[in-house]
């Protein structure tokens, strides 16, 4: 029986071994760069991974991509970083699952002499400076600007007057908080637009559905909703369909393929396009330059833009 257990474990492991063999062998000797994402099952991060992998191929870099099973699992992400430190990667690119919770992991990488590039989500500057952690660069979108674009779009659609709801991301997430701030600041110039409800749907589609359904119950005259991510926006779209309402302007964030379709069909008004693929590519490119001893910028801004019915076809072609 004991032998059986060993046998089964060996079989399972050799199976996984063969499945990762591909990535390791062809570029042995090449510098090893790790990209640790929040999750591997969100379209945004799948795009990021693709962009990073293409760039790695171009540069001849050995790229390892890892992610926790769940986007909010900060402890699992820390474990992944610790484990990658053990494999002595030359550089670490991380999209933090928690802006503050990532700091101890950064400290550990610092101690091991491995440079850390932060992608997509900023590290809390206070937490970082308190622990004297060092980050080589931040590569990401200007989320504040994106939130502002969304706010301006909604203000224009409503003619400067009306009731608006907001679906927030997980509180304390820097990306969501910045989008929210940008959105609110944009609406400050139009005092006749009122935010009647602002609640979290934890970045999730089913929660976007439920929360917006509840908002529709208590605020039947809501005219627009800004969701801090497309997944939550698509949940809201379904809630609107279920309530048989029309004419509510839904604005999301991320410009996922499904959101683009929804904009084409007219069920969503707009979304903000980030370029996760570009982000992934820039991460690998800059990590590579860092390893070669070249200087890189502290902050690398990845462009964003508003996607509406007018340009949804054009941006589709771009990606």
């Amino acid at each position, binding site marked *: *029986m*004991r032998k*059986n*257990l*060993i046998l*089964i*474990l*060996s079989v*399972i*492991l*050799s*199976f*996984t*071994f063969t*499945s*990762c063999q591909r*990535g*390791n062998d062809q570029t042995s000797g090449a510098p090893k760069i790790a990209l640790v994402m929040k*999750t*591997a*099952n969100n379209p945004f991060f799948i795009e990021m991974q693709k962009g990073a992998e293409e760039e790695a191929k171009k540069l001849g870099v050995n790229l*390892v*991509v*890892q*992610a*926790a*099973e*769940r986007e*909010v*699992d*900060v*402890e699992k992400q*820390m*474990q*992944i970083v*610790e*484990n*990658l430190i*053990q*494999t*002595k990667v030359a550089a670490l690119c991380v999209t933090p699952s*928690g802006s*503050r*919770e990532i*700091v*101890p992991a950064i400290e550990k990488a610092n101690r091991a002499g491995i440079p850390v590039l932060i992608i997509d989500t900023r590290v*809390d500057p*206070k*937490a970082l400076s*308190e*622990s004297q952690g060092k980050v080589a660069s931040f590569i990401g979108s200007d989320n504040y600007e994106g939130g502002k674009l969304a706010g301006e779009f909604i203000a224009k659609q409503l003619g400067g007057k009306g009731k608006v709801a907001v679906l927030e991301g*997980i*509180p*304390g997430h820097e990306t969501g908080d910045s989008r929210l701030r940008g959105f609110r600041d944009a609406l400050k110039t139009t005092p006749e637009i009122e935010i009647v409800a602002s609640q*979290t749907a934890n970045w999730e589609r089913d929660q976007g559905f439920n929360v917006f359904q509840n908002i529709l119950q208590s605020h039947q005259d809501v005219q627009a909703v800004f969701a801090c991510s497309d997944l939550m926006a698509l949940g809201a779209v379904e809630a609107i369909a279920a309530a048989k309402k029309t004419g509510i302007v839904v604005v999301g964030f991320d410009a996922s393929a499904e959101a683009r379709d929804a904009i084409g069909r007219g069920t969503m008004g707009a979304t903000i396009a980030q370029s996760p693929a570009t982000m992934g590519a820039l991460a690998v490119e800059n990590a590579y330059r860092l390893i070669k001893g070249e200087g890189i910028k502290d902050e690398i801004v990845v462009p964003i833009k508003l996607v509406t019915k007018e340009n949804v076809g054009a941006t589709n072609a771009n990606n």
Partner: protein
Amino acid sequence: MRSGGLTLRGNFFSHYGRQLGTLSGLLGLVVVLWALTPHFLTVSNLLNVAEQATIIAIVAVGMTFVIITAGIDLSVGSVLAFAGVVMASLLHAGLPLPLALVAGLGTGLLCGVVNGLLITVGRLPPFIATLGMMSVARGSALMFTEGRPISGFAEGFRSLATGDVLGVPVPVIIMLAIYAIAHFVLRRTKLGRYTYAIGGNEEAALLSGINVRIYKTMVYGLAGMLSGLAAILLTARLNSAQPIAGMNYELDAIAATVIGGTSLLGGEGTVVGTLIGALIMAVLRNGLNLLGVSSFIQQIVIGSVIIAAVLIDMGLKRRGK
């Protein structure tokens, strides 16, 4: 208690045999990983794995006690989150460290005792009582913090996670101490013997004069308190207490317990087995990371190992009878 002692002795060989089986599973895993990657069998990585195992391992001690009584505790992850944010907010409010730590443990204990009372006095099935607590504790943690993490602590507190004694990380030492104590309690004390007796045959335990209510409540209280301890270590490790921390930890703790040979039917199990189970899970995750295996495949592997371990366990049990 005579019948408790007999149950123990009767199961002695199957206990022992199964622990050996689990242990050789762990060793087999180590050998395979050693062959596959040069980064695995290094002192720094082994300490790294041990440290990563601590939190689930400590939660799993409480889970082992609960499962031996033929119960289940689904609330451990949420209780961990609640205890963590209570302690963190008290630390931020300037409470001295020892008091804040006691408050963290106390919050866990309280939640656990409520679980126990719901099950014993309220006569709710453990699944339902702790499912309810899972939601109540999570909601309390979120309400208490308005959904935001509480972060940034003094070096003294953080050293609970970052410190080491002769190179061994403090959390690992705490974990080993907890296991030593739990092993002693389970084997040598009334509480331990009654835990087996209740799980083996609750009716018989009751008839032989064991105060089942009190001991069962103590067991759930213990599970809650250990969640509080895990919360302290997790908060120190991340330098942050999150109201959404500990999600799915109940499942990892149940997995570690079951891999370690504790029967979900109750009446048998050991904490030594659970420790090995927790290490198997940590070693697997670590090894798969070192090998660069995608998180999707990792889930398949971990699930397969749980199933394989229980299949083998059942095979051994059948042979033992």
